[in-house]
């Protein structure tokens, strides 16, 4: 029913053009620009829902395809399309963006219109990353993402924001330029920048390994994987709440998405050869970063490290498949691993967004992120305390919440590969609970720590709406993940079929 409308283009350009209009309207009429931004964000979400409604779950083919020539001389096309892997991430992006706009409603008093505009443009560009099927178009969106985020952290960030934002920019820029060279190389092998043509491209093992490493640099920095994660805690701590939410909920997912769209299908043999590397890095992220999170004094830093640990599950789920292939168990485990990684990405999108928003709520009132400055918040903010405890439980992977589903699937898949992988991965159930709940214990429970905590006011209806909606999403995905799994099933099964065939 939506076949005639260019839904993907609308989802990309509506927020970008809306953002430019909001920016052009200037910072004087702050309220008007807030409402415009919110309208645009909601409209975009509604439009993106058409993707879900019109999605055909029975096929792994690209859907909602739009294809026209962009730069004819170099066969670069404006080529968009979604499958079961990218579609949920697009909806996640448009969904989270609404809350980011609302979360910045009152807090941001300095150039509010520019703030809203930056997030809207960011939203459109991120949707572009998920829907681009031309490698160059993908790269343009991928890099364009850096500019708004650079400004968001740099303008509205904390005291050490300049250091954090330049580190963020250079780190990610460093990662991605090597991917650019790999893409150009493949262009000459395939004769076009069509990503799907890259998938079918025959490549020798040495070529594959080099390309794989180039992709790894780009995606590992974005995910971020240990040991290239060090930009993330800095960026998170200094970013404004909305920036942290977008970073954790969506930008990290783009790295995971890159593995599924590029690394695995384009270089399956190299992925198989080097899967030990990714699995090791993932397990180190899960275990070591889990311990690092335990000792953090700063709430945002703690959640940032917990994000790295959780993203370790995603990459573990993606790359464990080769071990399962090699083993003699049924290939159902492989599907479980990749799907678990995907569910984990979506779930972490909700939970990390909610956690950062919770810290934002506290920070708006106390202007401190130090755990030591809090204590007994439950006494003064009971409603908020309830929600935060819920999200903390979800972060720790409590059954019934979405955090449990993804982790459980990945651990289950790991068992089919190697008991010790599963064992190490499962330590997160203890570590995650330890660092999250210990933080909650120190911040939320106990006696009221000081006068400032005693003076806290509970969340208003706006904040309640934001956190409540996310809580519903977390609960829904935790209790009934079937619709999400169903949507991506065909695409993932197809991807695994593709992976099982050597390109050599």
């Amino acid at each position, binding site marked *: 029913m939506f076949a005639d409308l260019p839904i993907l283009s609308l989802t990309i350009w509506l927020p970008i053009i809306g953002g430019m209009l909001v920016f052009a309207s200037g910072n004087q009429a702050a309220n008007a620009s807030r409402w415009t931004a919110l309208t645009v964000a909601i409209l975009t979400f509604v439009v993106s829902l058409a993707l879900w409604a019109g999605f055909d779950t029975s096929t792994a083919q690209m859907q909602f395809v739009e294809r026209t020539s962009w730069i*004819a*001389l170099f066969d670069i096309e404006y080529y968009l399309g979604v499958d079961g892997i990218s579609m949920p991430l697009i909806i996640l992006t448009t969904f989270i963006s609404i809350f980011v706009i609302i979360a910045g409603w009152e807090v941001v008093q300095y150039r509010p219109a520019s703030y809203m505009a930056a997030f809207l443009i960011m939203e459109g560009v991120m949707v572009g990353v998920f829907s681009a099927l031309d490698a160059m178009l993908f790269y343009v969106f991928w890099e*364009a993402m850096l500019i708004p985020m650079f400004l968001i952290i740099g303008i509205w960030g904390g005291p050490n924001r300049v250091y954090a934002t*330049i580190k963020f920019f250079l780190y990610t820029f*460093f990662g991605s330029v090597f991917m650019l*060279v790999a893409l*150009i190389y493949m262009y*000459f092998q395939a004769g076009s920048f069509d990503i799907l043509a890259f998938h079918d491209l025959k490549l020798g093992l040495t070529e594959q390994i080099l390309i794989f490493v180039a992709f790894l640099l780009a995606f590992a920095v974005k995910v971020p994987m240990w040991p290239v994660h060090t930009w993330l805690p800095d960026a998170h701590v200094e970013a404004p709440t909305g920036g942290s939410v977008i970073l954790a909920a969506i930008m990290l997912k783009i790295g995971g998405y890159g593995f599924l769209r590029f690394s695995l299908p384009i270089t399956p043999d190299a992925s198989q050869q080097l899967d030990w590397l990714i699995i090791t890095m993932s397990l180190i992220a899960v275990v070591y970063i889990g311990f690092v999170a335990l000792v953090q004094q700063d709430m945002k830093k703690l959640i940032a490290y917990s994000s790295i640990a959780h993203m370790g599950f995603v990459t573990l789920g993606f790359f464990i498949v080769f071990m399962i292939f090699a083993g003699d168990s049924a290939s159902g485990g492989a599907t479980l691993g990749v799907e678990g990684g995907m569910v984990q990405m979506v779930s972490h999108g909700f939970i990390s967004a909610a956690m950062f928003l919770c810290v934002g709520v506290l920070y708006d009132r106390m202007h401190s992120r130090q755990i030591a400055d809090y204590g007994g918040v439950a006494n003064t903010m009971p409603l908020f305390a309830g929600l935060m405890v819920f999200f903390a439980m979800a972060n720790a992977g409590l059954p019934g919440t979405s955090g449990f589903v993804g982790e459980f699937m990945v651990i289950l898949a790991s068992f089919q590969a190697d008991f010790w992988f599963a064992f190490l991965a499962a330590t997160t159930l203890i570590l995650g609970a330890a660092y999250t709940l210990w933080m909650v214990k120190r911040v939320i429970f106990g006696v009221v720590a000081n006068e400032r905590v005693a003076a806290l006011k509970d969340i208003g209806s706006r904040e309640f709406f934001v956190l409540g909606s996310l809580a519903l999403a977390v609960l829904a995905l935790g209790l009934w993940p079937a619709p999400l799994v169903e949507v991506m099933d065909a695409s993932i099964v197809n991807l695994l079929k593709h992976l099982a065939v050597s390109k050599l």
Partner: protein
Amino acid sequence: MQFDTSNLIPVLPEIFLLTMTSVVLVTDLFLKQEQRMISYGMVQVTLWLAVGVVLLTGQGEARVLFDGSVIRDRMGDILKISILVITSGVFLYSRDYLRDRDLFKGEYYVLGLFAVLGMLVMVSANGFLTLYLGLELLALSLYALVAFDRDSIGGSEAAMKYFVLGALASGMLLYGISMIYGATGAIEFGTVAKAVAASGMDDLVLVFGVVFVVIGIAFKFGAVPFHMWAPDVYHGAPTAVVLLISSAPKMAAFAMAMRLLVDGMGSLHGDWQGMLVILAVLSMGLGNLVAIAQANIKRMLAYSTISHVGFILLGILAGTSAGYTAAMFYSIVYALMAIGAFGIVVLLSRRGFEAENLEDYKGLHDRSPWFAAMMMLVMFSMAGVPPTVGFFAKLVVLQAVVDVDMTWLALVGVFFSIIGAFYYLRIVKLMYFDKPVDEAPLSASLDTRVALSVNGLAMLVLGMFPGGLLTLCGSAFA
């Protein structure tokens, strides 16, 4: 040699420009200082009419005229139009700057137009002599322009340095040319190419000739290790002159490299390629690294120019038509970025104050959000971040290099562009994340504002739709 008046039509742009320059020179003598706008207007009209003449007299296929000393082809036409348009922008941006400093004199425009004429001659040269004539006309005009603010010690020093080093480079070039002439017995590129193809690199004199010619080209480009003049000249010369030096001559230098190396010695590609690789890698490396250490924006942009030159050389050394297209696209885009950046420098300067230090850019976003955004676009474009056009310029160059199996060079290129991103980002950081130290309002006339806005937005628009310009550049080498 039979003389046919129809032969004059292809060189009509140069004839027109020369005539008009002389008219401006004479008219200006009879103008009072407050009527100087008339000269300015005449110059602008001249440039745009010259664009029209190029378009009108342009024909599809290449023609060689005057016993092979001049060539009129599509590459030349596109470069000529770009040079004329860019120079028009230069004159527009620099007008208020000159007026504020009592430098608003006819000589600036006459010298500027002679420089443009020199560039057009270079672009159309089909023989060593024509090329050298154009080059010297350009160089001599620029030497004088650098010293244009004659009371400025820095300016005189820069001009002296530029002159001495420039003369040395011209000497080298001439020396190389004479050797090639000795080895091949010809000064016209077509004949030289044939002779070179026959003899190859066996001839030692020819080898020396090529080396000296490459040195001459490297000097004009400002490629490392022949870059010494660039930072000092950029630093010492009036910003209005730096606008001119940094933009259009890069396109002329590109044309010079194309004519000498490709038209003249195309069959020696394997030999000069290696030299250009060294020049390109050193330029990208040193340019980007040293730029980080600069506290003066003009010096910083000078080193940034050096690094961009490395990229242009990468395109040329690929030796394919895709490579030449890429290098040409890059040099046009670079000229646009350079006048954009220096345009902002001029905009921020005012009577008695030169916005030369990086500190002066602090908090520009608070002072003028619009022009801060324009400068940001230019900076991101120079850094090569999509969706700005600078990214596509780098992309096509890298593509050309990867295509000829020199992927390692592409890796070197992107590696140094990461380092380069840092100092462009620093400008953005100063403009957006810091508080202003200088609260003076920005004053600029309406046409400058419009032109700067067009200039800045062009980074974005060309970045979203680079196809047209790319196809145009590609058609020159089809």
